[in-house]
């Protein structure tokens, strides 16, 4: 009964979104403000409605209603309460509902803002947001009903949305339980973060489409959505980092990123979104690249939907293949339609999106930003091709192929290297004009510092040319950024008589976007140190040890002390846990305890590493194999992952940087659209 209620609310919400689209379009066309207002209120209603649907689903999950197919698939009696709640997004139908719920929240937030000055955008923002929502809710209503229940008929037991004739409700005694891989804290937060990133990119897209439809093609839509874009980027980045941490802790690969097709699917919108974030600055500053920004936001939206499609449709099977279902063609149709209609709109308004200014120097900041865009797009092309290669190969040759890390690493490394270099040069180039001379003057000190650091590293750390080149570029960008930051703080310290810390604080507060951006650049370099460390210096070995025997790797020695096996009956898990003593250069450091957790319900192993983390390196030990029957020894795989913790440190700083850049500024809404001339005008605020 309660499941039917949940489904009923879902159907009504679907109808509300359709009404909202219709009312917005009709109201705008016929100039009936009351109808547009009705559409706005209808959109505002979607979030409470979807919250109610979700509450019903959570009620069913928490109270073991295994007659509901979705509840049966993702929960079991042995699961703790918090996992039963988070199982909401642990399976196909629930995760689509979760997507819609987040989308509704964001759409409601948009409708709550003051629309006095941008009344003409409102109906079209409603249309785009509600079409997106209607699509996802429609997925739940017609294909992936989270409230479908098991019924026993003459033909057997199957799940149905509505009770078939001559059937009885069937309730299994227990559920399948959530995939053990998804029970990690990182995996509990990772999907919501990615989804938040995905749905919040819908908002700038909705405004962009509104700008195209209304013909108001100045940079107003960009200014209105600047913060949405930054928050979207924050969530998406955080989601990707959490996914990486989850892979590192749970998948037992010894790494954080396996270039799995589903990872790449989430990485694609990030790449285009990052290009967009940089590119919009050019439009705001110089009134240029308007068409380009439109292309980028259309691509971002389409990669978001396409990314969701490939992970949901089972087009690419992977570790995330729990998400397979027959909804692929509908998704593909939607992506195709939105892409074609967006591009058609763009072509229709192409002439209105002409640049107000011209490029005056190939070394100006706008030119370098454009190069940055090209690099991000090149990486996107590589990733997009790699992600889709498997099914394209199957389509053409009849054979599926795997596009694994060797392809990606070979193809994207030089591009990321160039991006790094650009990250060092671009902040020092000026808008409009820059010459080799001015750039050289600004760059020589950090470049000299980077050379000194590289030489020091050559004598103390590594002689590998690739690593040294990488460290040089990282040092260069770090020094450029820190130098720029310091110059600003120093000037402020002198002029305002502040101490250096207050000067740093106030400087950042006064120009959050610029200095938030600098913090992001610094954090990127810390992350690059971690990536360089694990990619170039990772060492691994594997061996079978009897108790008391040792295994050496690098300057570490591990002695196998003990192993134990026990059942945790309430949670349905069997644990095998080994204990190893760890020595470094003969000095005892402590013990590590890698485990294999076997989940009886899903008959699945999880390999939990024993880790010892320092900023210098991570010692990462996996228990690969141990059979109690022939317990003569256990097999261990040991990795030394140098510098990898810089990656996690960098990601924290990264989040701080984006938060600073995205934090609302008091005067943000009061910034008027400037009338531009060929030369950029002086601003009263230093905000860029």
């Amino acid at each position, binding site marked *: 009964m309660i499941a039917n209620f949940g489904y009923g609310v879902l159907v009504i919400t679907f109808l509300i979104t359709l009404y909202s689209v219709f009312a917005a379009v009709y109201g705008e066309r016929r100039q009936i403000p009351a109808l547009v207002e009705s559409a706005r209120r209808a959109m505002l209603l979607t979030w409470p409605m979807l919250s109610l649907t979700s509450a019903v689903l959570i009620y069913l999950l928490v109270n073991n209603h295994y007659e509901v197919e979705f509840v049966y698939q993702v929960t079991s009696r042995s699961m703790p309460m918090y996992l039963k709640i988070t199982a909401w997004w642990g399976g196909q139908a629930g995760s689509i509902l979760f997507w819609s719920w987040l989308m509704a929240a964001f759409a409601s937030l948009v409708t709550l803002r003051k629309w006095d000055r941008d009344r003409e955008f409102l109906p079209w923002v409603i249309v785009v947001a509600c079409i997106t929502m209607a699509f996802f809710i429609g997925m739940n209503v017609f294909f992936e009903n989270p409230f479908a229940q098991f019924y026993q008929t003459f033909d057997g037991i199957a799940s149905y949305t509505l009770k078939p004739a001559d059937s009885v409700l069937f309730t299994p005694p227990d559920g399948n339980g959530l995939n053990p891989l998804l029970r990690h804290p990182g995996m509990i937060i990772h999907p919501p973060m990615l989804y938040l990133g995905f749905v919040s990119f819908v908002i700038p897209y909705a405004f962009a489409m509104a700008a195209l439809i209304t013909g108001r093609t100045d940079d107003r839509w960009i200014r209105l959505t600047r913060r949405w874009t930054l928050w979207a980027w924050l969530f998406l980045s955080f989601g990707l980092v959490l996914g990486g941490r989850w892979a590192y802790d749970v*998948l*037992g*690969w*010894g790494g954080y990123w*396996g270039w799995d097709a589903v990872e790449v699917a989430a990485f694609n919108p990030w790449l285009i979104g990052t290009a967009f974030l940089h590119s919009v600055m050019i439009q705001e500053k110089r009134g*240029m690249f308007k068409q380009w920004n439109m292309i980028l936001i259309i691509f971002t939206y389409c990669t978001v939907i396409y990314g969701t499609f490939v992970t949901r449709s089972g087009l690419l099977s*992977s*570790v995330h*293949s729990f998400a397979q279902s027959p909804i692929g063609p509908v998704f593909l149709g939607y992506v195709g339609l939105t892409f074609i209609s967006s591009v058609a709109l763009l072509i229709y308004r192409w002439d209105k999106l002409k640049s107000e200014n*011209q*490029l*005056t*120097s*190939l*070394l100006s*900041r706008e*030119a370098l930003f454009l190069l940055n865009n*090209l690099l991000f*797009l*090149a990486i996107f*092309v*590589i990733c997009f*091709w*790699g992600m889709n*290669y*498997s099914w394209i*190969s199957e389509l053409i040759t009849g*054979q599926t*192929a*795997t*596009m*694994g*890390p*060797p*392809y990606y690493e070979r*193809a994207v490394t030089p591009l990321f290297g160039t991006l790094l270099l650009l990250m060092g040069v671009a902040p020092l180039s*000026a808008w*409009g*004009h820059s*010459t080799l001379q*001015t750039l050289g003057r600004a760059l020589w000190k950090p470049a000299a510092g980077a050379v000194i650091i590289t030489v020091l590293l050559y004598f103390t750390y590594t002689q590998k040319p690739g690593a040294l080149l990488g460290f040089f570029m990282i040092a260069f960008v770090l020094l450029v950024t820190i130098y720029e930051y310091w*110059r*600003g703080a*120093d*000037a*402020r310290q*002198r*002029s305002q008589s502040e101490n250096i810390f207050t000067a740093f604080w106030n400087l950042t507060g006064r*120009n959050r976007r*610029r200095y938030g951006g600098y913090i992001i650049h610094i954090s990127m370099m810390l992350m690059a140190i971690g990536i360089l460390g694990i990619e170039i210096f990772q060492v*691994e070995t*594997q061996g079978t040890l009897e108790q008391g025997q040792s295994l050496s790797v690098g300057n570490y020695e591990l002695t196998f002390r003990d192993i134990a096996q026990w059942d945790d009956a309430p949670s349905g898990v069997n644990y095998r846990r080994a204990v190893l003593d760890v020595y470094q250069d003969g000095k005892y450091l402590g013990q590590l305890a890698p485990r294999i957790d076997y989940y009886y319900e899903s008959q699945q*192993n999880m*390999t939990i590493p024993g880790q010892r983390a320092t900023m210098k390196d991570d010692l990462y030990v996996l228990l*690969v194999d141990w059979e109690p029957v022939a317990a003569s020894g256990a097999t261990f*795989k040991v990795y030394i992952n140098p510098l990898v913790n810089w990656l996690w440190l960098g990601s924290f700083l990264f989040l701080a940087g984006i938060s600073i850049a995205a934090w609302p500024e008091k005067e943000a809404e009061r910034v008027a659209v400037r009338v531009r001339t060929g*030369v*950029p005008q002086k601003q009263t605020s*230093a905000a*860029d």
Partner: protein
Amino acid sequence: MSELFKPEPSRITTYKLLFAALIALTLVLISRPTLAQGPTPTDDEVNRIAKQMYCPVCENTPLDVCPTEACRQWRDLIRTMLAEGKSEEEIKQYFVAQYGIRVLAEPPNRLTTYLIPTIAILLGALLLLRGFQMWMKPSVTQGTAVETEARPGQDPYIARLEEELKKQK
């Protein structure tokens, strides 16, 4: 058995020795590759090859770290083949013949793998170049941009910063 047909003790020893030598020679000939390979291949030698492969069932989990029983059997097979003296390429070819190219971490035909993204990127770069030409002022396209005198004050923020710094000096 009559005494007549009873072999002499010394002859028995000779026959035995000859027979043993023959077996030893046969063994040497048969198992030459194994002996050439030396002791049983280590886990690291097996993993070096397994790292470049994926089993069709556990797609996207590299073979060297996949915890399933099937993948363990594959690794054992690699070990056996290494012990038989097979090269890395031969082992990979064996798996490709059995299960298709999907077992390899990278498709064998690199031309098609890299050609299409390269063409796409080059096209993008060409478009960008065209964009640069279009967006540049006519005077600038004639090659005066780089020689233009430094005007760091173009960025108002940098200009203000420079002014502040100058004042302090």
